[in-house]
């Protein structure tokens, strides 16, 4: 699965994109796996209320299932317009 990071999430983790092989059933489980890896993930995911997530390019929430998902993206609240 492709995992993408944008804005300060990208900066904290240090890469815009990576391939992740996971058995995580939900976004929250994927986050827990990533946080366990390294401090930079722990730092990026320390406050989930400051983050938003999209699964296959659709905004969703951290309870969303990952079954069949090809792309998960994490980013701060959007500031378009």
């Amino acid at each position: 699965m492709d995992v993408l990071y944008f804005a300060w999430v990208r900066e904290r983790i240090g890469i815009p994109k990576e391939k992740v092989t996971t058995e995580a059933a939900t976004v929250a489980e994927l986050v827990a796996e990533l946080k366990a890896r390294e401090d930079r993930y722990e730092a990026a995911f320390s406050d989930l209320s400051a983050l938003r997530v999209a699964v296959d390019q659709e905004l969703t929430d951290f309870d969303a299932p990952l079954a069949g998902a090809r792309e998960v993206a994490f980013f701060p609240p959007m500031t378009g317009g």
Partner: protein
Amino acid sequence: MRISVQEAPFDLGKETQAFAEGRKDMGAIVTFTGVVRDVEGGLAQMEIEHYPGMTQKALEAIASEATERWSLGDVLVIHRYGRLQAGEMIMMVATASRHRKDAFEAAEFLMDYLKSRAPFWKKETTGAGTGWVAARDEDEDALDRWTNPA
């Protein structure tokens, strides 16, 4: 309906003229244009990051919802990304309708959704340093009026 996500500047005058011209069945045209505002101490640069795979789809979904909720003859959304200076135009929306109420409401709806639901992030560089622009609570609140109509 036209949605354009682009790095290049757009010509507000030409876009507005082309959008409004010769609409014999549409009495009301509304445009909104967002301009990079200078900040205290001076804005050296604004960098707009976006999520290439998702942005176009997200804007199309927002524009489609507007056309379902209001009687619109046409919708235009242009949103830039990349590096911009103070005074440059970031984005515009335009709506055409028979009556002004629909054109105004749809344009405000588009803006409220673009602000908080389109995958763009702004980073400002000023004399004081560089930082990501935080989302404003009032932008999130502005969405409520469309889900909980008074």
